[in-house]
């Protein structure tokens, strides 16, 4: 099947019911996408599919056919908003052990500039963090999305 991964069209020969998570990590070597729970609870495996956040542990490979998938590797390389998020996570202590961080950043990417704290919480409600207690994460996302920061404007979708 043909999938566009991080902007590159790739032909993959994979079983249709394999998890997109495994295809990304094992077949594509994109290990930035993490597995926390494997059952949709933690969001560590979040990627964008056609711009929409999904848990890649719950997506069969077949559903990625013909779609554009973006992982943390691609987001960081291609999107200024992702870079702004990464810097803000560093600056504001949004990452401690870091396991949840790629998923947090991918889940935050669809947010618009100037999103409210409530909108940020809603976007990240499907992401668990065992270290930070969330406040620092919300502050990081807020900082990245605030217009005062140059280059921090989040793209829609």
């Amino acid at each position, binding site marked *: 099947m043909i999938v566009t991964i991080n902007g590159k069209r790739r032909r993959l020969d994979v079983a*249709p*019911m394999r*998890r997109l998570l495994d295809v990304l990590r094992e077949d594509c070597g994109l290990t930035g996408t993490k597995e926390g729970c*494997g059952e949709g609870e933690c969001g560590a495996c979040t990627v964008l599919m056609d711009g929409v*956040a*999904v848990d890649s542990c719950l997506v*069969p490979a077949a559903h990625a056919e013909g779609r554009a998938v973006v992982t943390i590797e691609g987001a960081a390389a291609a999107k200024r908003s992702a870079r702004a998020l990464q810097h803000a996570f560093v600056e504001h202590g949004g990452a401690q052990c870091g396991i949840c961080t790629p998923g947090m950043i991918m889940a935050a990417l669809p947010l618009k500039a100037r999103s409210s704290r409530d909108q940020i919480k809603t976007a990240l*409600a499907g992401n668990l963090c065992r270290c930070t207690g969330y406040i620092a994460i919300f502050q990081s996302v807020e900082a990245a999305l605030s217009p005062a920061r140059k280059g921090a404007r989040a793209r829609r979708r």
Partner: protein
Amino acid sequence: MPAGASALSLARPRTLKAALALLAEDPELMPIAGCTDVFVGLHFGTSGQRRFIDLWGLDELRGIALVRPEPSEAPVLRIGALATYTDIIASALVRRRLPMLVAAAREIGGAQIQNRGTLGGNVANASPAGDTLPVLAAANARIVLRSAGAERRVAMGEYYTGYRTSVRQAHELITAVEIPPVAGRQWWRKVGTRKAQAISKIMMAGVRGPVVRIAIGSVAPTVVVADKTARCLSAGGTLAEAQALLGDEITPIDDVRSTREYRHQVAQNLLAQFWRETE
């Protein structure tokens, strides 16, 4: 997982017609939509299923519209089985006609689950904790089932036959849910643990109009339509009278999430809250 994921087969029909023809030949194929239930089952190894049929690509099952199934009937809200929670939340039509479904959808999982989980999947999965089920029951919805040969509509109150069982036959698919106009104020509340996590402890949907309707989830093997309680309130009975009846209409159990008494108490409290907030 899925240790044996490579051994699982997936048929991928392009149209509903083709999907129904495949199911007629081989009713053992298990449908998949957003996979937010199916993949959890595979991950835990609780699903012995090996052969699947993919509905996710059937865009004809995605629409949300007002339709008139019978020329004589008032228009009903028709939500395609593949409509996701995100689609439902974004739909001005659903917001206007069935705001309690929007309220329920907003509390299902996080964004990642809302982007993939479908209404048809929630109904078909038949969990007593399915959040949309009390809403659909309180709204008098009917489930549209289609097979290669026929289409039928089943009232929500008759759809479930027991714990995780329904009238749907293996060669049938849910194509849509149809909701007639709802008269009165709609109300929804879910009592759970963390909002975005899987299972509700108890949830209630209510309609307060000329006819009161109340449906409750997670208090019995299937969703409960609390007819006696609702009739009492419709007829001008007091809240205390209605609460006494409610206690007999539900049969909650003790499990790892809550005790029986706790669920009884919460149901009574929710009824009181519904009545107070819809005055």
